[in-house]
């Protein structure tokens, strides 16, 4: 048995995007995105351009999983934030329940500002995510009607 699917409705998606857009502005960041702990990108805002957000999401999740494993070895539950500072570009990751809030920033911002602004939106995002986690399939879901032909057509 796999986990129950995570369902993100259009309204929730736009609400999340709005929170990310504000965070991006308030923290003077380049890109802000929200990722599931399993590495699935949920929403992104900012100067994405050629940035490979899918790979970044997967690697950020791997990073948090690995440091979480280290935390447990030394008797901590997890490390709630991670920062990587480069010469020009830096990344800050906050763990919010089952989600990761990732902020990519450069010299226009600072780690202190990004930390502060990320913390300020954490609670709001956490409540949104709780709501998403409770969502269940309803009768109108298109997937109940997937046929074997639909699936076979993907491989032709």
């Amino acid at each position: 048995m796999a986990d129950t699917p995570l369902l993100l409705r259009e309204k929730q998606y736009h609400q999340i995007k709005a929170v990310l857009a504000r965070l991006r502005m308030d923290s003077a960041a380049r890109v802000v995105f929200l990722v599931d702990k399993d590495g699935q990108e949920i929403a992104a805002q900012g100067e994405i351009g050629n940035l490979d957000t899918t790979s970044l999401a997967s690697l950020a999740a791997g990073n948090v999983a690995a440091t979480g494993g280290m935390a447990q070895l030394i008797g901590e539950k997890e490390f709630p934030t991670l920062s990587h500072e480069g010469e020009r570009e830096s990344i800050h990751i906050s763990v919010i329940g089952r989600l990761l809030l990732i902020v990519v920033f450069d010299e226009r911002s600072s780690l202190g500002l990004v930390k502060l602004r990320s913390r300020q939106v954490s609670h709001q995002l956490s409540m949104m995510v709780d709501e998403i986690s409770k969502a269940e399939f309803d009768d109108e879901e298109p997937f109940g009607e997937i046929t074997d032909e639909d699936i076979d057509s993907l491989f032709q």
Partner: protein
Amino acid sequence: MTFINYASREINCKIVYYGPGLCGKTTNLQHIFESTAPQARGKLISLATETDRTLFFDFMPLELGTVRGFKTRFHLYTVPGQVFYDASRKLILKGVDGVVFVADSQEERMDANVESLYNLEENLQAQGYDLMKLPYVLQLNKRDLPNIIPVEELAAELRRKEEPVVEAVASTGAGVFDTLKAVAKQVLTELRKG
């Protein structure tokens, strides 16, 4: 865990390739990468040692097409096969939707196959999954080598349920897409159940 985004009309699923060291998990992904149109796949990320042994994982996103108006994206991962990387293997199984077990058909690797399969069941259990209920495919790889165990014998030893068994030579690509198709089909069929 399958992630369905109604705003971008996307279904995202996670498939993990598991198996003993040097069985061909990364080779499976490399073949898929090389044979897929660039617009249908992302980068192949390999976190490997200097000698090309997988250290943490390989990752590749693959878009298969549209089902009922939703783009289907599969996130393909491999685990490091070497016994001492068990902590990494556990982490990569988090949120898995389907598993491919890549077995090495060579006689001398039989014990390694059995040990790795046992390790898979144990690590899935630690994450709250049951192999018997998870979309799952058994791939018998390296069928082109001289010193291999007959298919029936391998299947009798390694098969856990009614899972599809696919013969493969990942280095030439034989059986690689059949394996992917078999597991993807089961994952999408699970969605139907809601």
